[in-house]
Structure formats: structure tokens, C-alpha cells
């Protein structure tokens, strides 16, 4: 039975890159056969910036272990940043694929197999990460539905939307229901001139001045901070690799998306 089990598992390693996700961990067959034991996952080359833009389909392998690492990082970022970050579609889809493979692999394995409990345990951990990540995003969408959608409509066509397809559908659906509910329950009974929801003022917006802890992943020069007092006196600081900081979210907003800064 064991050999049958191992070639099933090797199918996980060589996930064929179907059209949806450019990210693939297709460590080819023969690399897998010479057992590289020890716990360091095989280090296939990954370029520094893991940009997962869909359109140009560069083949850059990333091992499942790094995949989980990325998921954990984006989970932490999403958890601490006040605003909705960019959706890591590639990572999420690849993780889902891995889980599916592992699950039908467990189903096919012999019932009393000693490894099943361990694989299940690991699957539960990864699922927890994934579900928590998606749940946090949905919570934010519900909180700032109108401002997210408004921003999404305003964005120029070449930048990717922050929301995944399903999230976009959910957000618009949610916003429609909230508006319908507010009008039905209150606004209808008010005199006509007050019936406008005037979302410009009342729309809840993410509070970008929230303070966050962060760790810099590599040296960053010239971050503008403290542009508070209106007489334009602001401070520029540099941060070197591996430092821990606590500061407002606003100054480092762009660095989080690009991965130079990791929220803790």
C-alpha cells in the first residue's frame, strides 16, 4: 500500500498549472524522487518580490511551505490593518487546491493508516488560517461596504480590484440590502427632504490613523510621518531591515501592500 500512497502524494507536488492561477508549485517528477529528507522544504528559486499579477504568466515555483508562510503573513496584515488590503487570490486558490489534493489523498489512504491523523491535524491548521483570513476580510467589507465599493468604482482599469469576484458580489449585495433596510425602516417615514442618506458624511471610513506594530522586511528610506500640525512640519525617518516599530498606519500604507513591511 505504501508505494501507492507515496505516488498519490507526489501528485500533490506536481500540480499542473491550470489556467486560473499562474502560481504553481510544479516541482517536477524526478526532483521529487530523490528523497531530500530533513525538514527544510525544497528551496526552489523564488524571486524576492512575489508579485502574482495574473496577466504575465511567469513560471516561478514556490513550495507549499512558503505558500503557508505567505498565507500567514497576509492573514496578520489583514488582521491589523484598518483598511481592506489587496486580495491574495493566487495564494488562496493555491492553498485551496493543496487542501483538496490532501483531502482526497486521505480518503484514498488505508483506513488504519498512522499518518491520517497527522495529515488531518495539519489540514485543520491550514484551514483555520484560511478561514480566519477570509472572515476578517468579510468583516471589513461589511463595516466599510460603501467606501470600499465607491473606491473600487473610482480605480483606473489597469489596477487590480482589491476585492475578489465573490467579495465584490457580496459587498454590492450587502450594500443594497443595508440601504433597502435603512430606507424601509426609517427614511420612508421622514419628510421627503430628509430622505437622503447622504452617505458622503455618514459613510463609515477606515480609520487610517490607527496605530500598528510592524516589522520591516528590508531597508526603507524616507518615510514621511507626523504631518499632523498644519504648519507643515513633518519628520522623515529611515527604517532598516528587521526592526520593529509602532506608528500610525497611514505613513506605511503603501509599504504594506508591497510586502516591504509586515504588520505584527
Amino acid at each position: 500500500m505504501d508505494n501507492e500512497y507515496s505516488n498519490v502524494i507526489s501528485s500533490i507536488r506536481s500540480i499542473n498549472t491550470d489556467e486560473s492561477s499562474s502560481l504553481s508549485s510544479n516541482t517536477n517528477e524526478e526532483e521529487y524522487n530523490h528523497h531530500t529528507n530533513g525538514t527544510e522544504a525544497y528551496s526552489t528559486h523564488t524571486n524576492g518580490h512575489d508579485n502574482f499579477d495574473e496577466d504575465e504568466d511567469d513560471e516561478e515555483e514556490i513550495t507549499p511551505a512558503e505558500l503557508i508562510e505567505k498565507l500567514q503573513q497576509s492573514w496578520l496584515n489583514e488582521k491589523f490593518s484598518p483598511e481592506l488590503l489587496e486580495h491574495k487570490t493566487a495564494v488562496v486558490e493555491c492553498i485551496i487546491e493543496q487542501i483538496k489534493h490532501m483531502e482526497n489523498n486521505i480518503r484514498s489512504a488505508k483506513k488504519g493508516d498512522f499518518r491520517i491523523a497527522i495529515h488531518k491535524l495539519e489540514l485543520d491548521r491550514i484551514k483555520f488560517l484560511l478561514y480566519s483570513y477570509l472572515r476578517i476580510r468579510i468583516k471589513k467589507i461589511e463595516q466599510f461596504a460603501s467606501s470600499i465599493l465607491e473606491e473600487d468604482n473610482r480605480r483606473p482599469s489597469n489596477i487590480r480590484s482589491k476585492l475578489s469576484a465573490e467579495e465584490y458580489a457580496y459587498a454590492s449585495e450587502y450594500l443594497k440590502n443595508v440601504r433597502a433596510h435603512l430606507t424601509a425602516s426609517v427614511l420612508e417615514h421622514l419628510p421627503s427632504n430628509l430622505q437622503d442618506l447622504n452617505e458622503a458624511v455618514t459613510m463609515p471610513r477606515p480609520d487610517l490613523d490607527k496605530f500598528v506594530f510592524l516589522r520591516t522586511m528590508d531597508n526603507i528610506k524616507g518615510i514621511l510621518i507626523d504631518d499632523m500640525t498644519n504648519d507643515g512640519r513633518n519628520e522623515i525617518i529611515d527604517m532598516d531591515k528587521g526592526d520593529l516599530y509602532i506608528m500610525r498606519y497611514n505613513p506605511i500604507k503603501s509599504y504594506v501592500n508591497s510586502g516591504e513591511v509586515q504588520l505584527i
Partner: protein
Amino acid sequence: MQSDCYKNGYFNIQDIMASQERISCKFEIEIPNMGFLDSSSHDSNLKVGSKLDLPYWLIKAIYNEKFKFVNIDLPKWYKKFYHDILEADACVVDLRKMGPYYYDFGVLLLNLVETDIGLNIAKTLLSCFRSRFRRIMDLSAQTDHRDLYRAISKLDYTETEMYKAGQLDANGFIRWQRREFCKLLPSIIVTANKNKRKRTDSNGD
């Protein structure tokens, strides 16, 4: 500052309550048929010089540099006299008595007052907040808040929020150390209608 007076959003209760605070002000001009506001006079319109306590949001909506229809009299907590007290030792002052929203209302007041008095208020608020922080941090580290009641009653609304956040951290750590998250407790719904289930059990067997 696009909606400075609505700090964390339009529907934030704390802001709404803060802007409810009343300010006593003397009317500079006469306002036709608003006499009903001033209970002391029976005249239909509001005469010059009548003194009224108006809530902040009303004044904010109408009042601006050009149209000073009232003369604002600062609440006594924000006057010079109290600034010296706070300067002396902020920790013992009972901020809750001075209006539960001392800081928030103080910030809101800055919009109505001239810059120099405003600056003074803002500076006092800042130093008072800073000096009281240590006490709040130490208070919140104690997990049993029953015997702290006397100390907590001196905090204003914002400080109580900070105290609660500190409590959250402290309790979270204690619960983690006692590994209470390992115990899976039945959800309330189950325990709530436990007796109902028992009845079905009893007539079951």
C-alpha cells in the same frame, strides 16, 4: 480635516454624547418667535442678553466668525482656574465630575474659541492626559476591578475606554496562562434549555 468632529465615524455614540454637552451663552441679537426657548420670559421672541444653555451641536451649526449671534461663556472646567489645578497634579482630579467627556468636549470646544485660549485648553488637555496615563495603566493591570471602584470612578469616558482595553489585555494573558481556552464549554444555547432536554430524556426512557 474632513470630519474632525466625528472622530471614529458619523454614528459614533461617544461623539454624539460629547456634542450634547451644554454651553451657557448670552444672546447678542434678538431672534424672532423663539421666545419659547427662554422659560423666564413670556415674550414671543428672544431678547438680547438672555442667557441660555445651548447644546454644542446647535451652536456649532450656526456659529461662525462672521455671525457671532451669541457670546460664549466657557464652562468653568476649561477656565484658567482649573488649568492650574490640572497643572498641579492631574492624577487626583475627578474628571468624571467635570463632565464625563472632558477630553472630547475640550477638543470640540477648540472650534468655537479664539486660537490663544484654544491653544491653552489643548495644552492642558494634553499634559493632563499624559500625566494620568501611568495610573490608568497600573490600574488596568489588576484583574479584579471590584476593589478598584473608587479609583476608576475618577476617570472620564475616554480614560475608562483605555482602562477597559488594558483590562482586556491583562485578563487575556491570565486566561491564556491558565489555559482556559483548552476547555471546550457548551454554548449558552445548550445550557439555557438544558432542562427542556432533560424532560424529553425522562419521558424518552
